[in-house]
């Protein structure tokens, strides 16, 4: 079988996502404070920490652990980020429910499923200064690398690079959606908090998967 990782480590992988968001609570709020209302880190950390407690000590599959994360976000935090990230993770979980192992091909489905689920509730896209500026190029970079025959690990590297570039691209964008959109030109020069948190999540997801590849 091609390079893959076991879905049995769901709790550990999602716990990694929890820890990166909780660790960046203040940083995310600070970025959000520049053009949003400064609560991005607080709300994200609240939802992710809730999930951390829910999965602690449990042996969950990746789909089960992502379901717990979705529940924590959709029921635990509101705002925009609850429904947005909740939709992303449920979309990811739906693609790997029956799987024991995930190879690069399945991982493309996981990423694309998350993105499609997100697009069901928002029309936002690249250039809107939001998490889509990170997510869409990252998903496409993984798909492209995989299609061109890159190894799973290399495709994850490509995803990380694209996510960082996408995050940084929001600095030069004028916000078109969300609370920052009312700032118009004044939103220039500042990163979007959602794009930053999305980059943190995708990067940690890749970092968590890479050492598990066999």
């Amino acid at each position, binding site marked *: 079988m091609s390079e893959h990782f076991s879905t049995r480590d769901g709790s550990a992988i999602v716990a990694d996502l929890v820890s990166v968001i909780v660790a960046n609570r203040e940083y995310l709020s600070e970025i959000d404070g520049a053009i949003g*209302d400064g609560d991005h880190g*607080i*709300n994200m950390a*609240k939802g992710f920490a809730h999930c951390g407690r829910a999965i602690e000590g449990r042996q969950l599959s990746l789909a089960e652990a992502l379901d717990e994360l979705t529940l924590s976000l959709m029921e635990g935090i*509101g705002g925009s980020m609850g429904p947005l990230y909740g939709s992303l993770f449920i979309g990811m979980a739906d693609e790997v429910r029956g799987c024991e192992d995930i190879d690069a091909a399945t991982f493309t489905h996981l990423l694309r499923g998350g993105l499609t689920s997100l697009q069901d509730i928002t029309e936002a896209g690249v250039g809107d200064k939001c998490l889509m500026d990170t997510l869409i190029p990252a998903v496409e970079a993984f798909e492209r690398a995989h299609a061109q025959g890159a190894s799973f690990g290399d495709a994850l590297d490509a995803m990380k690079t694209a996510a960082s570039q996408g995050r940084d691209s929001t600095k030069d964008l004028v916000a078109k959606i969300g*609370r920052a959109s*009312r700032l118009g030109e004044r939103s220039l020069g500042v990163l979007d908090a959602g794009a930053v948190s999305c980059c943190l999540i995708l990067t940690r997801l890749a970092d968590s998967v890479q050492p598990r590849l066999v």
Partner: protein
Amino acid sequence: MNRVINDPDHVVEDMLRGILVAHPQLRQYETNPRVIVKAKPSGQGRVGIVTGGGSGHEPAFLGYVGPGLVDAVAVGEIFSSPTAKSFFDAFRAADHGAGVACLYGNYAGDNMNVKLAMKMAASKDMRIRTVVANDDVASAPKAEIAKRRGVAGEIFMWKIGGAAAAQHYDLDGVIRVAQKAVDHCRSIGIGLTPCTIAAVGKPNFEIADGQMELGIGHHGEPGIEVIPIEPAAAMAERMLAPILADRDFSQDDSVVVLVSGLGATPVMELYIFYAEVERQLTAKGLKIHRCYVGNYFTSLEMMGVTLTLLGLDTELKTLIDQPCRSIGMTQAE
């Protein structure tokens, strides 16, 4: 940051505890502590009125739960939309077999959570319809009116919708008059100082001493311009101008005026401001049917004021005069 709190991360829970013990006519809904309902629900066959929004705007939103107003409110974190689950539970709480009118303000988070909640409700065959308030003239030009935020005008939408439900309007009727209230309503705010979310610990934005921001949003969304502080008479003129330019209120039977403090402006000053609004409206030949002056829809401890005008026709006039009882608004027979 000098605040009367216990734990900055639990201000919403702590506030709800106080609200519930102070107001036994309110209670939390079943297993969801973030849904506030009337202890004595409306009768079967009445259209249910639901709203919801972030905390920090008290008495909005939960302060408008009561007879003649709202049946159930979904409560969010400070300045953050309630969860989809809370909106859904509020629908369930308010459903008395005649459908539910969800009357909320135009914000990205609320739009998404209501949309998800409506998906959940559709799977249970519940009938939910929405009206989205967009009364803030400063938040987008008239050509992009659908992008405008909902602010204090939401109160008129609840008052009109709630009165219609109490008068046994059906769901279509409630939606029609609530939408009419929004269409006939325009607001604008002015901010004098910023506000601080306790858990963040520092102000959300800045307004220099001696300056004021015209068109500021309820969460400190930047307005149209920052200018030196003026006397109340000039503020009233500056705020009335964009409202009257946006909609012709002279075509109405009369108008209702709502002056709400943003949290830290003394009530005394709200009356100083209202006197100027009244003088200028009367000078323009507009008839004031009713006025509301007080802290109706706040933004934590922001200093400033919002001004809302509602143009009345015969139907809206009848509905605005109906009795209601709640923390935020009580009107006798």
